[in-house]
């Protein structure tokens, strides 16, 4: 089945315009449940109630309000909120090109696949040029009336668009207060820890990591469906041994 695009527009590269469409690159596989009433298994409905009138309110009487002080709202119409989206609904202008690997992972939010809207060679040209330089084009992207900071880059054999967090949305490590230990770690401890890191080093392959929790939730559903009694076990906390050197030695010995 061909994937469905979620956005059509144009990427500009100087005077060159590349027509593109975007596709979701990720999908959550979390097991989702419906809320039901324990007693009778009937579906729960979320109703919108006005606390003054104590009755359900139809959607057309509900507006968006920004709270300026407790229980005081500035009401904004849909069109007014839309006005904040800016004027670039259908274009992504690449303004500059940065080294892809210089962008710290903290900034990355979500990735989309970028497809070509025609069979012209522009898409390939941009792809090959980004791949060759290892750079990502920085621009802005408007989606559902909201503007995002994005990078366009080469990913395997296609273009990908990443939405990025803004600098003030990222917490910096120096804002956190982490006390230092009174007794420094010894060179021997450091050496053992380095050995452990080396022993546990491997090449990254995403396939090695499965969502085991999701599997056990699905298994639980099946057991319950078969009428099995569910054992409600408690959780265990690991012990925090205080002898760092002994723990390191035991780790190395156990794996070596």
């Amino acid at each position, binding site marked *: 089945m061909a994937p469905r695009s979620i956005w059509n527009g144009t990427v500009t590269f100087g005077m060159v315009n590349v027509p593109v469409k975007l596709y979701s690159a990720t999908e959550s596989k979390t097991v989702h449940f419906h809320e039901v009433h*324990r007693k009778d298994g009937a579906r729960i409905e979320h109703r919108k109630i*006005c606390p003054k009138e104590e009755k359900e309110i139809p959607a057309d009487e509900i507006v968006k309000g920004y709270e300026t002080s407790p229980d005081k709202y*500035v009401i904004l119409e849909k069109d007014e909120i839309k006005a904040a989206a800016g004027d670039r609904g259908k274009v992504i202008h690449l*303004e500059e090109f940065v080294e892809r690997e210089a962008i710290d992972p903290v900034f990355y939010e979500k990735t989309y696949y970028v497809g070509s809207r025609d069979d012209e060679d522009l898409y390939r*040209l941009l792809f090959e*040029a980004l791949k060759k330089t290892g750079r990502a084009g920085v621009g802005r992207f408007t989606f559902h009336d909201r503007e995002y900071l994005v990078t366009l880059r080469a990913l395997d054999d296609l273009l990908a668009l990443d939405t990025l967090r803004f600098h003030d949305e990222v917490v910096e490590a120096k804002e956190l207060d*982490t006390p230092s230990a009174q007794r420094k770690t010894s060179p021997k401890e450091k050496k053992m820890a380095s050995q452990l890191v080396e022993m546990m080093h491997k090449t990254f392959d995403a396939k090695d990591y499965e969502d085991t929790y999701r599997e056990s939730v699905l*298994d639980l559903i099946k057991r319950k469906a078969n009428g099995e009694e569910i054992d409600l076990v408690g959780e265990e906390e690991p012990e925090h041994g205080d002898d760092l050197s002994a723990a390191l030695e035991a780790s190395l010995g156990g794996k070596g």
Partner: protein
Amino acid sequence: MARSLWTGSLSFGLVNVPIQLVSGARDLDYHFHQVHEKDKRRIEQRRFCSKEDAEVEWEEIASSYDLDGKQVILTDEELGSVEPRKTRTIEIEAFVDLAEVDPIYFDHPYFLIPAGDSDGTLRAYRLLADVMESEERIALGRFVMRSKEYLAALRVLVGVLAIKTMRFDDEVRDPKDVPTGGAKPKKKALDNAVAIIEELSADWKPGGYEDCYRARLKGVIDKKRKRRKIEAPEPEKEPSPVPDLMAALEETLAQVKKGKSPEKVRAAAAAADDT
């Protein structure tokens, strides 16, 4: 001080470090509430049983799953029973090179800070941070938070352990059906495109990009408070593909070499089109 979202321990071989998870991102967006237009009261979402047509307390709610047409109902206690026994532990499973992990896997950033200030805790924390920093490796582990398992990449940022939750492999789609255009570019076109990118190269300076959307939305809210009229800007026309690619590349390259920004290059091209 940062709010702790989760407490547990980080295990590295047989070394356990008590840690707290705090968010690495802050939400600066303007949020709206649903309001009843008539009386300006905030709408409340309440749960009703569709059969009894009566409000239901939170404690009386269970989770239902549709298993091939059969309804299976689970209580919170039953769901809690499958959380792995070591649910309060982030166990380091492997160390990998950061460059091997594509950003497509990355989700939310967090920091891990020591829980408590016993010397044992702080020494173990510092040891792991120092070693990871000098080895330039990231650690992979997983943990369960709010009934969901997360794969996490652990790194060191300025001496602090930082993690990024990750998507699982089957949560990343296969891009094979995404159309990727026509033929490979000709050498001359590629050389020009590469030269344009080189000319427009800049260092990644995140502080140089401001959230204009947030600023505009604040402007809209302020105007509305003062009962001023709000007008949407005219949307920019979507440009059409240029007829002569080589000419457009050469002209772009010539302009950016003169130090013109892409914005100025586009403006010049648009002005030329109008005449």
